[in-house]
């Protein structure tokens, strides 16, 4: 019998129905933060966290955004989280949630996607979870429901981020952590014990948000239906006048 290849659920939103089971005594909830190890820190992570790096070919096609985007996509850390539901210590529900910037197989859908749909289920992580750094936070049912609500809202209204993928991954996860009211998650770089690269991503994420806000402001205030003013270029005018004079002499 041939081994069945894992199915990568590109651009699919996670099914959150597992999270609708009513609370019962003995049920516990976890927010399991995961991060791919940055190649720069691979050795440290192998030693201290028993982590290994991601396979080079993640078996799905990254979006073509030029060399810089590809650099980030291939060399930086994907950050995502698992929502876990347990009963008497045994897992009864589990979903991986993260930000995706995948291509959609349908070109028509791809046009609509721009870049980024949250909710990519990281099947690849399922097949070998050992290479990821992780930190598990215990949640109350209320916190758990808040994260589920956050994910569902983002599925309904996906953000269209344009920035390097890893930054989006961090930002999406950070916002989910904020929804869960995790300790220190409100502070930039405050997600405790994350690798230093993540701190840098968070700083970059802040910068990206600034740019994003500026772009939104521009889109709200200005329209391409109107031409922007064409100021007089004094040098051009001087040249035109000189040309006219030369023509009139000729």
């Amino acid at each position, binding site marked *: 019998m041939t081994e069945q290849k894992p199915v990568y659920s590109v651009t699919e939103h996670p099914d959150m129905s597992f999270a609708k089971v009513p609370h019962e005594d003995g049920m516990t909830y976890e927010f399991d933060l995961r991060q791919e190890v940055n190649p720069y820190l691979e050795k440290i992570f192998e030693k201290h966290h028993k982590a290994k790096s991601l396979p080079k070919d993640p078996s799905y096609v990254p979006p073509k955004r030029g060399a*810089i985007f590809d650099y980030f996509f291939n060399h930086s850390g994907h950050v995502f989280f698992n929502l876990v539901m347990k009963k008497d210590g045994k897992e009864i529900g589990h979903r991986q949630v993260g930000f995706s910037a995948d291509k959609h197989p349908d070109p028509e859908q791809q046009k609509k996607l721009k870049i980024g749909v949250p909710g990519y289920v990281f099947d690849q992580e399922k097949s070998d979870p050992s290479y990821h750094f992780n930190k598990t936070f215990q949640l109350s049912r209320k916190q758990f429901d808040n994260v589920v609500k956050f994910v569902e809202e983002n599925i309904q209204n996906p953000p269209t981020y344009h920035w*390097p993928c890893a930054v989006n991954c961090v930002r999406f996860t950070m916002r989910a952590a904020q929804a869960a009211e995790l300790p220190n998650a409100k502070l930039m770089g405050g997600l405790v014990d994350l690798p230093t690269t993540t701190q840098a991503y968070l*700083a970059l994420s802040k910068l990206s948000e600034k740019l994003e806000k500026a*772009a939104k402001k521009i889109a709200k*205030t*200005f*329209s*391409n239906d109107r031409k922007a*003013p064409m100021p007089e270029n004094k040098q051009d005018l001087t040249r035109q006048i000189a040309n006219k004079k030369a023509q009139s002499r000729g």
Partner: protein
Amino acid sequence: MNRPQDNRFYHYAACFLRDEFPEKTKAWDDAKLKSEIDKGLLAAHRSGFSGEADAMGFIDLDWRFDGALSANTPDDSIQAVLDSDESADVKLDCLRDLYCAREWGKMKND
């Protein structure tokens, strides 16, 4: 004489730039700010960003890149984006990515 829509553009452009770049603009009076907007507009038109939103996006990024977009000879990465066949809004997205990537480079070197 300015068209009414031009006056509107200059007004909102000035508000936007004062809001986004308070340090840079605080010592400038309105005339100086307008002349800077004009410089940006000329460069924007020259690079094919002629709609109001596209031109404003261009000026915004030009300021963030310290004038690298409006320079007579932008560096190769910026020039490649400006010369590409993409639409103006995609070019602006690419320039934003490029800006983030450069800042990222600076952070790594700090």
